[in-house]
């Protein structure tokens, strides 16, 4: 099937880009591995940051940059903040329900790391309301949706082929569906789901990032993974920051509000500070029982807030706690612990949302938006409420840029919402500032897993079940190694341990895959009748084994890349804390770029645009 624009991912970023593109008569398709309304965006509870007024724009920018700890790009930050109001207002005029005050102003709540209440919300279903609207309007604009359709391979445009080819597994039908398009937009969300305890949806494991990495596209700032301080201990499910925003306390085993020891903003300090404080309290023996007999949690206390207020402002959180712990939030203490939550890194993009190659030049026809992309709004640490904003503004931006590149000249219908693009578009060609010259490379990395596609499309499912190992155990092992090496605190020896463990796993998987591939091709050449094997793994609807193979790839690739990136950055900065390099080093005030060059794994650093002309 051929389209002008294929969007991978139907979260807020994908849907917003789809609205703009389809309204400008681009033939647009959105591919998602779950139904669009089940995308991870639906789970965002807390809210979205919108500057209060003209004056607040400055402060919002400053606070975002401060939270980014030196590696948020000033131009991206100011672009997103300045376009916040009109982008969100667009959604607000066609269906979303951000609450308004009597005065007609958007209602706002406090969020960590911000001195003023700036976070707009709809109860604690902000994401639900925004995503519903974006999806609805994309439907209305004529976007075609292909859901339950998981991308497993991408062939980018090249000299021989002037279209991108996207291969997908239509899971509910048990079929392979191929798409081609002139433009490809990646909006498949983040990868924090590859951590063992995380707050993300099942599918947030960075499939597309790993596939594109294998094709030589770089990934940027991978070492920065945000841990949310307050996950429920058992599952990692998130208790939104709104709980602290509305005045919740954190208590240690002595019943003391320990956050005041760590930061003057106490519970409303940025997430990384709170997460580390909790971790430190636990390490130093002041943790409370997390329900499994180990003292690996602290208490969240909302008992001083009236029940009515809780029910009015935090109904979803109230239900969540009641349901998952059996406790009444307004009466009892809740055990919480940090949980992997958000990936600051991703695909490097320029000011138009276009993906950059290893030499930092834009890749033809390839764009990215949302959590999958790294516009470098968040730097080393994301401010709560900024990511929904990034998905919306970034989505509209990518959609607009694609329309503009498609039509080259001016558009007949104005883009909606009309972002202030001009200056931004012009600056996109500007190259990034030089990096610090630090460079590392690693030979012989078998990270491309070339056998996978053959196995998926040719191996008979029946036989696979009999001979293949249980890959879900291996995935579990990878998750654990990742968390051990690149958790809240990192150091040389832990990183090295994990790296060698992952290398071993990588080697054995390559071996297993090669054997499987051999068998598959041998089979295919003997029975020529069924070359288009109807019994292959992807020809089965929802085959768990096929799913595990796909999930295995991104776990394996990304966890090694995160470990390598974390190892190379020999300093501490916001979400990346090395106990062996506890201070921030200005040499590392740069983005890390990790990519494949043949079989060599390369890491280099590129400078930050810090706003000084």
């Amino acid at each position, binding site marked *: 099937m051929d389209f002008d624009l294929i969007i991978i991912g139907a979260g807020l970023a994908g849907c917003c880009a789809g609205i703009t593109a389809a*309204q400008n008569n681009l033939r647009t398709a959105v591919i998602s591995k779950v139904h669009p309304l*089940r995308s991870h965006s639906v789970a965002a509870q807390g809210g979205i940051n919108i500057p209060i007024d003209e004056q607040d724009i400055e402060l919002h920018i400053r606070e975002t940059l401060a939270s980014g700890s030196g590696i948020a790009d000033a131009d991206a930050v100011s672009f997103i903040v300045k376009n916040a109001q009109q982008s969100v207002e667009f959604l607000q005029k066609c269906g979303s329900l951000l609450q308004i005050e009597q005065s007609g102003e958007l209602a706002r709540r406090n969020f960590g790391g911000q001195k003023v209440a700036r976070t707009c919300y709809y109860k604690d279903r902000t994401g639900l309301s925004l995503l519903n609207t974006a999806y609805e309007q994309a439907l209305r604009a004529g976007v075609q949706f292909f859901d339950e359709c998981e991308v497993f391979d991408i062939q980018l445009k090249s000299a021989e082929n002037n279209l991108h080819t996207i291969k997908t597994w239509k899971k509910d039908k048990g079929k392979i569906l191929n798409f081609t398009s002139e433009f490809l937009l990646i909006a498949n969300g983040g990868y924090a789901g590859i951590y063992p305890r995380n707050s993300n949806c099942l599918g947030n494991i960075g499939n597309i990032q790993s596939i594109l990495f294998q094709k030589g596209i770089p990934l940027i700032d991978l070492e920065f993974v945000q841990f949310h301080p307050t996950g429920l201990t058992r599952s990692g499910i998130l208790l939104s920051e709104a709980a602290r925003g509305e005045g919740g306390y954190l208590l240690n085993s002595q019943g003391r509000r320990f956050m005041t020891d760590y930061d003057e903003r106490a519970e409303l300090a940025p997430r990384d500070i709170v997460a580390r404080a909790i971790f430190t309290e636990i390490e130093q023996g002041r943790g409370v029982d997390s329900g499994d007999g180990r003292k690996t949690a602290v208490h969240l206390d909302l008992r001083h807030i009236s029940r009515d207020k809780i029910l009015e402002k935090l109904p979803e959180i109230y239900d969540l706690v009641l349901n998952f712990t059996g406790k009444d939030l307004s009466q009892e203490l809740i055990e919480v612990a940090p949980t992997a939550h958000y990936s600051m890194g991703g695909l490097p993009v320029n000011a138009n949302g276009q993906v950059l190659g290893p030499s930092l030049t834009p890749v033809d026809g390839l764009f990215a938006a949302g959590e999958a992309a790294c516009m470098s709004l968040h730097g080393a640490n994301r401010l709560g409420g900024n990511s929904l904003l990034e998905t919306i503004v970034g989505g509209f931006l990518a959609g607009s840029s694609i329309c503009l590149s498609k039509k080259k000249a001016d558009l007949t219908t104005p883009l909606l919402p009309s972002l202030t693009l001009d200056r931004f578009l012009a600056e996109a060609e500007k190259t990034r500032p030089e990096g610090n010259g630090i460079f590392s490379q690693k030979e012989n990395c078998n990270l491309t897993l070339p056998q996978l596609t053959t196995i998926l499309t040719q191996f008979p499912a029946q036989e696979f079940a009999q001979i293949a190992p249980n890959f879900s155990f291996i995935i579990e092992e990878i998750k654990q190694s990742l968390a051990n090496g690149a958790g809240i605190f990192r150091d040389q020896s832990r990183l090295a341990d994990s790296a060698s463990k992952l290398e071993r796993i990588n080697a054995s998987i390559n071996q297993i895959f090669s054997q499987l591939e051999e068998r598959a091709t041998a089979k295919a050449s003997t029975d020529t009748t069924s070359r288009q094997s109807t019994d292959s793994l992807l020809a089965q609807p929802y085959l768990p084994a096929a799913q595990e193979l796909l999930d295995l790839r991104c776990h394996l690739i990304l966890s090694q890349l995160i470990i390598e990136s974390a190892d190379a950055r020999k300093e501490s900065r916001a979400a990346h804390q090395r106990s062996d390099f506890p201070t921030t080093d200005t040499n590392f005030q740069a983005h890390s770029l990790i990519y494949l060059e043949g079989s060599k794994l390369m890491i280099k650093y590129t400078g930050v645009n810090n706003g000084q002309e």
Partner: protein
Amino acid sequence: MDKNNKTMPTTTQSTINTPQAVSHTQESATREIVLQIYRFDGRNSRYSLVKVTAAPNDSLLDIFHKVKATTLPDFAYRYSCRHGICGSCAIRIDNIPVLACKARLRDYLRPGTTHLRIDPLAPQQVLRDLICDESSYRKSIETIIKPYIINFLGKNLCPPAATPPTKQPHRQIEQSIYAAASLQEILPDPDLLKNTEGCINCGICYYTCPAVVEGEFPGPAAAAKLFRFTVDSRDNCYSERLKLADQLLWNCVKCMKCVELCPRGLKPYYRIQDLLNSAYSNRLNEHSSDLSHAKGVEESIFLTGQLNDIYVGARTSIFTFIKMLPTGIKSVLKGNYNFFAIYKVKNKRSIRRLLKRGSKNEQ
């Protein structure tokens, strides 16, 4: 799908040991249960019997993970968010439809039993194990009710607004001011939505509603969605939507299953009644026989305390009445209809009171 095999389940048996030592408080609480899980591999269906240890506070989803990790590696089920907001994981426990991630063992294990049967939400549309093809549900919303705000933004400008219907819950905003309107001017009062914006599309109501017929009655969730757009001041298609409600929704049989089972407390049934009431009152000035019939029934009960066929007939349409007269006379002559058996209703006052109370909106 082979439904015959369903009655002859083959059995996979196994015992699962608790992976780690557990603390005392938990130990007393965890217990061994037996799950009878529906399986379908694309050809045959059967039940797997699985023993598993679980704590009362475990969700069914936790238990599925455990089963998958230890006994049935190829067990397939849908889930995503794990906290009841994405609507992926609807299944049936002992035939009660629930979200697996929210259902706690303690709430579904009857005292004294250790056995639970797990079935897919839509047994007729299974793709694999507990995963169903939901396309009919999606269609009921996406292709039938125009599930999006239609207003002046965007390229598909809405059709020119019809004459504003009488009882529109919100005022309509002129095109000229829409784009520039402040949020306060255009936003609906959230209370008007009655929670319908909170639907997570789990499909539970759709797959349990007895009245759903594809292409005819689109089911409770679609109705709730339709309602959501009729009370939103940003939408410009109020009367079209009411017309659609009028065409689609009368087949609800008022069983209230959707109210009882919706995990988000949505009460679609009441929204159907709201829509039909609005549609009804919007048509009051129309002349159509079904409307006159409905009015006739209401008046007859109000006046006489009972259904008076002659009155209702005459009220519906005088032509129909005359046309039906010979049949009526025949049935009186044959004794099928006895004028004198109609007894006088004694307590008309309280019947009127009931009628009045009933016609005030139900919820």
